[in-house]
């Protein structure tokens, strides 16, 4: 395995989680966007997965040559907070969507 830049990996993960949350909510609120995602692969969820994978790879490729900074430790905790916040946002959004319907 080649040398890994942990900071770039952590940031790529955080940004990918943010992207998943945005795509999830945006596609529920705007049917046109959901339609674009559906047209891409035949199913909006499959498109979200493919976009996330490609986005993650591009983010890491763009950031992996940057030197590891002094905030590396905090940076590695970023995905933890993004996961907790993102999971709660998605759950609360769908709960609200269901209760409001």
């Amino acid at each position, binding site marked *: 395995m080649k040398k890994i830049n942990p900071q770039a*990996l952590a940031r790529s993960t955080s940004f990918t989680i943010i992207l998943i949350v945005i795509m999830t909510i945006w596609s529920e609120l705007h049917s046109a966007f959901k339609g674009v995602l559906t047209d891409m692969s035949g199913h909006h969820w499959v498109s979200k997965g493919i976009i996330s994978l490609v986005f993650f790879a591009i983010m890491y490729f763009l950031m992996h040559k940057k030197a590891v900074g002094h905030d590396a430790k905090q940076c590695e905790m970023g*995905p933890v907070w993004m996961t*907790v916040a993102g999971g709660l946002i998605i759950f609360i959004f769908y709960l609200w969507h269901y209760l409001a319907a």
Partner: protein
Amino acid sequence: MELILIGLHAGIGEIGALSFLWVFIELLSPNLQRVARAKVAAMIGVVALFTSWIIGGYYYVTFYGANVKPAIKAGPMPWAHLVMTETKEHVFLFLPFLAILILGLIHAHKEQLLKGERIKSILILSLLVFLISMAMAGMGYMISSGFRSAIT
């Protein structure tokens, strides 16, 4: 066919979950052998979660949308789809990336881990992946309960 896919998705997903619990336990008190085993466990976890994603995704796209989703929505527990399935299918997307991150961090911090440094984030992430995976299984139970209540 559907039952086999559901079983494989859940079973392989649980292997992924337990792999990251294994990573967590190995790194509570790291030494050369434990860090090496944690890396193997994380590799198993990455492969398991990606495999579970593909199998679960195939089931979801091929069978769930056409047969299960309409029944749950018309049954007495529509929230099983409208809240649980929707949350599960999207939060699941976090897991493969978190799994890659954990494997990458173990690889990148191998030397520091042996000195007892840089462990905290890997421990928390491993436990988080384990707990989210367990929550996925719990939501899967609620979704199948929603379907059973709709067809009985």
